[in-house]
C-alpha cells in the first residue's frame, strides 16, 4: 500500500520550514520501504481523494486572514477526514486555522475549520522560545516556538503535553489532540527534531493502510544525527 501525505497551503503556511514535517514523515516511511505519495493543496487546487496524513504549517497573521475563506471552503471535508481517523499534524497558524475561532485584533475574529475545539486569541505579545520543551507521551518534544497567541482548549480536549520551557497554549500546557489530529506551536520544524512523535503519527497512518512500519539501521543513523541537533536545544533548557 501507499501512504499518502497531503500538505495544505504549502505556499503560504510554511513560514518556518514546515514543509519539513511532510519531508520527515515521507523520508522515515521510505527508509522502512513503504511507498509514499506526497501531495500539496493550494488555493484553486482540488482536494482530491482521502489522504492518510494531512500536514499544515505556520504562517503570518496576514496569511491567516487571507486564508480563512479558503479554510471555510474545505472545512467540512477536513472535519469528516478527521472523524474518519485521518492523521493530522497542524503547526502554528495551521493549527489555529483548524480551530474554532481566531481573534486577530480588537475588531476581527475569523472562523477556523473546527477540527480542533480550541479558541485562539492572537493579540497577545509575541513569544519566541528558542528551546521550546514539552513533556508528555512522546518524552521530551523539543523545537522552537514563535507566535503571539493564547490558545484555549474546550473541555474534554487533551493537550499534547506540559510545557517545560516556553509558553505553549499559555496555561502551562501545549497543543491539542483529538482522535488522530495533533495541533502544536512547535516548529523547527516539529517532526524533524522529534522522531518519537513522527513515528507515532506514522504508526497511526500505517494502521489505516495496513502497512507495517519496521525501522532499520538507516533510521538509527538518521536519529543519531537528529540527536546531535536535539542536544543543542536541550542544552539551552533551564536546569
Amino acid at each position: 500500500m501507499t501512504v499518502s501525505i497531503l500538505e495544505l497551503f504549502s505556499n503560504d503556511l510554511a513560514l518556518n520550514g514546515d514543509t519539513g514535517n511532510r519531508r520527515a514523515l515521507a523520508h522515515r516511511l521510505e527508509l522502512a520501504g513503504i511507498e509514499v505519495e506526497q501531495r500539496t493543496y493550494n488555493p484553486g487546487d482540488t482536494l482530491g481523494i482521502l489522504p492518510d496524513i494531512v500536514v499544515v504549517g505556520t504562517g503570518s497573521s496576514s496569511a491567516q486572514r487571507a486564508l480563512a475563506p479558503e479554510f471555510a471552503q474545505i472545512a467540512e471535508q477536513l472535519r469528516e477526514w478527521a472523524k474518519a481517523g485521518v492523521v493530522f499534524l497542524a503547526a502554528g497558524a495551521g493549527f489555529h486555522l483548524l480551530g474554532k475561532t481566531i481573534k486577530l485584533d480588537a475588531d476581527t475574529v475569523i472562523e477556523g475549520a473546527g477540527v480542533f475545539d480550541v479558541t485562539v486569541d492572537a493579540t497577545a505579545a509575541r513569544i519566541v522560545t528558542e528551546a521550546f520543551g514539552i513533556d508528555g507521551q512522546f518524552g521530551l518534544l523539543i523545537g522552537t516556538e514563535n507566535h503571539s497567541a493564547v490558545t484555549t482548549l474546550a473541555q474534554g480536549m487533551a493537550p499534547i503535553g506540559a510545557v517545560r520551557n516556553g509558553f505553549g497554549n499559555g496555561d502551562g500546557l501545549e497543543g491539542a489532540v483529538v482522535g488522530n489530529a495533533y495541533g502544536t506551536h512547535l516548529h523547527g520544524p516539529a517532526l524533524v527534531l522529534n522522531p518519537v512523535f513522527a513515528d507515532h503519527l506514522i504508526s497511526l497512518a500505517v494502521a489505516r493502510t495496513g502497512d507495517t512500519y519496521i525501522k532499520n539501521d538507516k533510521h538509527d543513523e538518521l536519529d543519531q544525527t537528529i540527536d546531535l541537533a536535539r542536544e543543542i536545544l536541550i542544552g539551552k533548557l533551564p536546569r
Partner: protein
Amino acid sequence: MTTLSKPGGVKYVLPILAGRAARFATRLRGGGSALPGVVVQKLAPNVMRDVAAGLPHGVVFILGSNGKSTTTNIMTDVVRAHGLKVFTNPSGANMPQGIASALLKETSLTGRLDADIAILEIDEGYGVVIAEQLRPRAAVILNLLVDQIYRFGEPDRVATMFRNIAHAVDGYVALNRDDNFLAKLGTELEQGGKHRVEYFGSTPEALASAPHGQASARDYSEIEASANGAHPVAEVVSASGNEAVIRFAGTDYPITMPSRGLHYAVDVAATLTLAAHTLGERFDVNIALKAVQAGKTVYGRGEIMTVGDREVEILMLKNLASLQLNLDSLTYEPDSVLFAYDESSYDPSWLYNADLSKIKHVDVISGPKGAFVATRLAYEGKTFDRIIPDVTEAVQAVLDGPRPASGRHTFFLDYDQMMATRKYLGYKDLEAGAAS
C-alpha cells in the same frame, strides 16, 4: 575663526576626544567597534545630526533584507568614480552605535566629516532612529524577504519598518518594483505626495531565468501596485553567472559582474537608479558601469580566495533567500563543500524550505549549530563526511584533504563562521562586524 563656523564647532572637541579614547581602550582590549559611538552620543547627542548636515550631498540609505552590504559597496564605487568623496560604514556595522562609531572615527575634533556624501547600509530594525539623527535625503530599498523570523516575527512587521523609514526619508526613494511589498509601498508613497519615487527591476524573462526568482516575501494586502513600476530607471534584462545586461535610459549595457547571479544584477540596477538621482547631471552611466565591473565583492559574498593550489569561494547564508539565490547562481557543481552555521542564528527552521538539489554531497559540516545542517541533509538523503564544530579546524580539514577536481572548495558560511574563516585564512582586512 573658520573652523568654528563649521558644523559642531568647538562644542564637539571634548566628546569626540572621549570617543577616541574609548576607541583606543576597546582596541587595546581587542573588542568591538560600537563603544566609541555610545560615548560620543552620550556626551553630545546632536553630533551625528550636525555632522550629517555638513555633507554637501547629504546622507543616502541602503536598505533591504539582503544585498545591503553589496549595494553600499557598489554605490560607493560608482559615486567615487564620479569624483566625490564618500563616507561609508563598514559592511555589517549598520546599527546606531556602529554607524556612530564609524562616522566619528572620520570626524574632526570640530565635528566636520571630510566627505561630500555618506552612503550607509542601515539595519531595518533601527532605520527610523538612525533616520531621525541623520536626516537622509535619499534611500533605496532592495527587497523584503523572509528573514530573521526569530527577530521580526513575520515579514509584515518588516514591511511596517520599511514604510516608517521611507516616511522619515526627506525626498527620494528608489524601490524594487518586482518585490511584492515594495511595489505597493511605492504606490502609497506616490499617493502621499511627499516623495519622489523611482523604480528598478528585472524583465519577466530575467526573473524566470532564476529558478526561485528573487524569493520575495508574500504580501496579502489588497492594494494594487501603481503602473509607474512599469517604467523602471534601470532594469535587469538578463543575468547568467557573471554576465548581465542592464537597461538604462532605453539602452542595453552588457556587463561582467564581480559576483554572480540575478540578485547581484538587481543590486547593480538599484545602484544605477539611486546614483543617477543622487549625482544628477554629473551622472554618466559609462563611468558608473566601469566602476561596477572594476569593483571587488564584499567580504564573504561570492568572494574567491586563493589558498595554495586551490580556490576557496565563500557564499554567505544568512537566510533562505541568500542561500537559495547563491545556490541558484552557481555555474558549476560544487565538488568540495563546507557548510557552517552560527550559534547566533537562533532558528534554523528555514533550512527545510531550501532547495538543495545543487549540492550532491557535503564534505564537512561546522559551526556551533552545524548539527541542524547535518539533520537537514540527512532528511534529504544527502551524505556528508564529517561534523567538525570548530570552523577553523573544519577549514583546515578541508584544505588538508585532496584537491577537488574543480580546484575549488565551496564554503557556505553563516556570518560569524565567515568572519572566522577569513581571519583564519589570513585575510586581515576584516569588516567591523555587526554593531552589538
